[in-house]
Structures are given as C-alpha cells and as structure tokens.
C-alpha cells in the first residue's frame, strides 16, 4: 500500500475506502486519490493492483471494488473519476 508524506487522518472518507479495499482485496499496491486533495471529498480516483483480479474482466473487477465500498458509494462518494484494476502481472510487478 502506497502512502505519501501527508497520510490521511483517521476516519476520513478516503482512509475508510483505503482500509476496506486493503482488508478485502489484499492489494499489493493501492492508490486512493481524492479529487482536489479533499480527504472527505465526493470524487475519487482508485487504482488497485491485486491478485484477486486474476481471470476477471474489467467490469467484474470494478464490481469487486464497488462491492467493498458500497456504503461510501451510497453517500459520501458521488463519482469515481477513474478506477484502474490490475493484476500484479499486468502492473509489471
């Protein structure tokens, strides 16, 4: 999981999303990037690299991620600007 110098505070929307995806999909790399740098913002970019995506089409992979963050999608998050779901092999890892 990649974190930058200013790690998100506990209980922000972004940190909740990160925790859930980490726990459920066990990514080797994860980026949850809020639009406009707002950790409680309503738009987000999510890039996940996980072995769990092996053998699954793009739509199925995104469904897996959406399932994990369903609650956030019903409320806090209005749109996922970009979602990239790769296996470690596809990500060159």
């Amino acid at each position, binding site marked *: 999981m990649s974190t930058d110098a200013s790690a998100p505070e506990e209980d922000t929307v972004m940190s909740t999303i990160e925790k859930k995806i980490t726990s459920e999909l066990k990514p080797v790399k994860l980026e949850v990037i809020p639009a406009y740098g707002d950790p409680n913002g309503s738009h987000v970019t999510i890039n996940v690299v996980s072995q769990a995506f092996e053998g699954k089409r*793009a*739509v199925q992979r*995104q*469904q897996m991620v*959406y*399932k994990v963050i*369903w609650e956030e*999608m*019903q409320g806090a998050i209005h*749109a*996922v600007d*970009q*979602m990239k779901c790769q296996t470690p092999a596809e990500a060159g890892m």
Partner: protein
Amino acid sequence: TEDQAPAQIRSIIDRYPIVLFMKGTRQAPQCGFSDATVALLDQLQVDYECIDCLDEERNPGLREAIKVFSEWPTIPQLYVGSEFIGGADICRDMAEAGELQDVIEK
C-alpha cells in the same frame, strides 16, 4: 414495490437484446455520462431500448433497484443479451477497442 423490482428488471433485460438504463431519455439525456453512452450506441447503429431511471412515474424505485441488481453504484448501465456490460467508461473503452461491437454481434 421493492420485492418486485428485481423481477421487473429481469424481464426488461430479457425482453430487449440491448438495453440502456440511463438518466433521462434517448432524445433528452439528463447527464453527461448517459448522453455519451447514447451517442456511442447511436454510432454503432444498433437497435436499443432506453429506460429512464429518473422517471419515478413510469419506473418507480428503479434508480436504486438497478444499482443493487447490477452491483453497480452508478447510472448509466448497459445490458447486452441479458448480461451487464458496464457503465459509461467501460462502454467507451470497449467501443474504442472494438469489443463492444463484438459483444453486440454475438
């Protein structure tokens, strides 16, 4: 009612070979993503049905029910051959790669 929604959605996706659950109508889309997906399907020159998820009179509760049914939290949603294909981004990517045309032809 809530219980009937999945059955109603099932009957829609089984009845129409290509069906787009969208915001607004084909002639008057109500959001940019729905508009883009309509344009995409128009370019492919195929027959497709549009279901307006904002029309609470004709399709009460559909806006939420379709999200649960597809396990997909946003609209528009494209179904081809009773199978969920994806939202606006996935449809665009697939169209660019020629994959959407392949799926429709099957």
